[in-house]
């Protein structure tokens, strides 16, 4: 059996009086694209922040490569958050090198990677200009570059194509494909179900902090007797909240059963 790169077990998160996530269990396997879906406020970002060690979970465990992630061990992760931005007053290359260093790369390696990436995304001529002078789409490419620096084993992309034109969207999805081929696991958060259909190997749909669907794309479609992930998503969100609860979350047994593609 393939050892998961991400293992989340009995994870709950309460902030203040609010229960954000309830008894969540899932695994992410090396080399797969794992679609992590849910409406706004369903607990996706909080789960990711807890996985990264930014938030402290209330109960359960969130492991990457078998251990809780800390800033010291986070170099294996590339993260493109939903609330993303860059140092607008800094130059493109300086910013990328800085993030490379924070991810444990040497300055030279970070520079080499950044220069190559900027060439790839046709921004080489912008290397020495300030980020605030780039368009939104160009800034997003730089953010993606920062996320994939250092060949991460796990890439977390939170709505990566939001705001991108079709050309840049294709470029981003091609890069994700390449990384996947190299064995990188991708947690892909999106509201665009066609991207899920195109990219995802497995998925989890979160509603009110509770997992409502989990498994391979085919398994989920079979379970909900539907041919469209979008229809399944809508069906889940049309259900009354009080119908579902923590009990509806996939159990550890179920997770194991549906681990494979």
């Amino acid at each position, binding site marked *: 059996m393939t050892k998961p790169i991400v293992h989340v077990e009995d994870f709950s998160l309460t902030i*203040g009086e609010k229960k954000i996530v309830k008894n969540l269990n899932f695994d992410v396997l090396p080399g797969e694209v794992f679609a992590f879906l849910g409406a706004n406020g369903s607990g996706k970002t909080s789960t990711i*922040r807890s996985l*990264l060690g*930014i938030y*402290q979970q209330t109960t359960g465990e969130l492991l990457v490569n078998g251990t809780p992630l*800390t*800033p*010291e061990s*986070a*170099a294996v*992760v590339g*993260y*493109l*958050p939903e*609330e*993303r*931005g*860059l*140092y*607008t*007053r*800094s130059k493109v290359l*300086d910013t990328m090198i*800085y*993030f490379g*260093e*924070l*991810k*444990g790369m040497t300055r030279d390696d970070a520079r080499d990677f950044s220069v190559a990436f900027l060439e790839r995304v046709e921004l080489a001529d912008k290397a020495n200009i300030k980020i605030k002078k780039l368009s939104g789409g160009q800034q997003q490419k730089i*953010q993606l570059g*920062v*996320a994939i620096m250092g060949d991460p084993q796990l890439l977390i992309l939170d709505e990566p194509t939001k705001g991108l034109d079709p050309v840049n969207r294709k470029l981003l999805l091609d890069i994700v494909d390449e990384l996947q081929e190299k064995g990188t696991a991708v947690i892909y958060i999106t509201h665009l179900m066609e991207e899920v259909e195109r990219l995802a190997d497995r998925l989890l749909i979160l509603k009110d902090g509770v997992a409502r669907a989990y498994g391979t794309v085919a398994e989920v479609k079979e379970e909900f007797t539907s041919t469209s992930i979008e229809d399944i998503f809508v069906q889940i969100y049309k259900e009354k909240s009080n119908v579902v609860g923590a009990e509806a979350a996939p159990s550890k047994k179920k997770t194991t059963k549906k681990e494979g593609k």
Partner: protein
Amino acid sequence: MSKLRSVIRHEYLTIVKQPSFWIVMIAIPAIIALIGVLTILGNKNSADRIQEISKDIKNVAIVDQSGLINKDVAAAAELKISPAEKINTLRDKVKSGEKEALIVYPSSLKKDRSYQLYLSSDDLTKMGAISTLADNLLKTSVFLPLGSPEVIAIAQGGATADMTFYKDGRETAGFNEYVVPGLFVVLFYIIFAFSIGYMLTSVSEEKENRSMEMVLTYVQPRTLILGKLLAVMLVTLTQVAFFGLLAILALVVAPHVGVTVALPFGIDLAKLVFDPIAITLGFAFLFTGFLMYAGFMTATAAIAPSAKEANSFSGVFFIGAFIPFYFIYMIATDPENKIVSFLTYFPLTSPVVSLIRNTVGNFNGLEGWIALAVMFAFMLVSIWVAVRAFKLGALEFSQTIKLSSLFKKS
């Protein structure tokens, strides 16, 4: 350690690479120098012009009831002293413009030290010239009996005192003792004016531009804050070095261009005192005070959802740093005063008050070290609050963190 180094380098270079950083650094001394030069030139020109005009004013009537005005002095200015009975006639002539002015030195001049001027117009230049003329006539007449010009100069301008101070039976350097510890007060305000705000900007901008979440994935909050603090300290050192070099350059260049740099309060660079205890305390107050304020600024930036709101909140700290100036005389001369004691230990005022008291040396016994210990405790609290606020507020992009939540167990 390497992440800390990266944060320090990034934060430092982000600040010093901004053109605005250097523009402000260069503009401030340049503007001060320019204002100084313009003031000196302007005053000199005005004084010269008034002096010239006053020499040319001949159509002025003088009535002396005080008996202090010397006729020869008036005659030397080609003026004549008129009898007191003609006051009304002369005043009418001024009214009609026939005379430019009437100066009346009354019999009560010695007692009241005031005389009357009647002017034919409200021209400010003419007013200045005639005032100067009237004043010169009086002073020269009064001082004339003293004899030599040297004696008159002393009577007019006084003399400088060459002071010798003794303390505990030993000669001291007097005001020169205050200069070196006093530099720490100046340094504190330079840091405050230029650098403390960078902490606020650095954190609130990172929040506002949404780069915080990516950064916090790879760096511990305390490493990030420490890196920012150390970077701001480096920025401060850069500024101090720049201003120091500028001051040295001015002292070296000034004599070669014929400008005499007169240090105030009889400061003599050769007589400066380098008291190790005062310097140690000064440095400790400066360093601790800086970190305490930086901690509060970081917490403010982390708590507030935007740079604009963080700036509004930070006004409290600026007020705290400047309040001691309202009490500076009391702080320097009355250390036993309850208000001084309160300001010495109150966190927002303690750095400046302690630095001033260290400068004038009015800490009694161990009081300075106790003040330092208290300030150090506040510094630890401020950094704890900063880290806590940062953890709670760094990723809150739309709402202000409640103060009470800082002290809740997470």
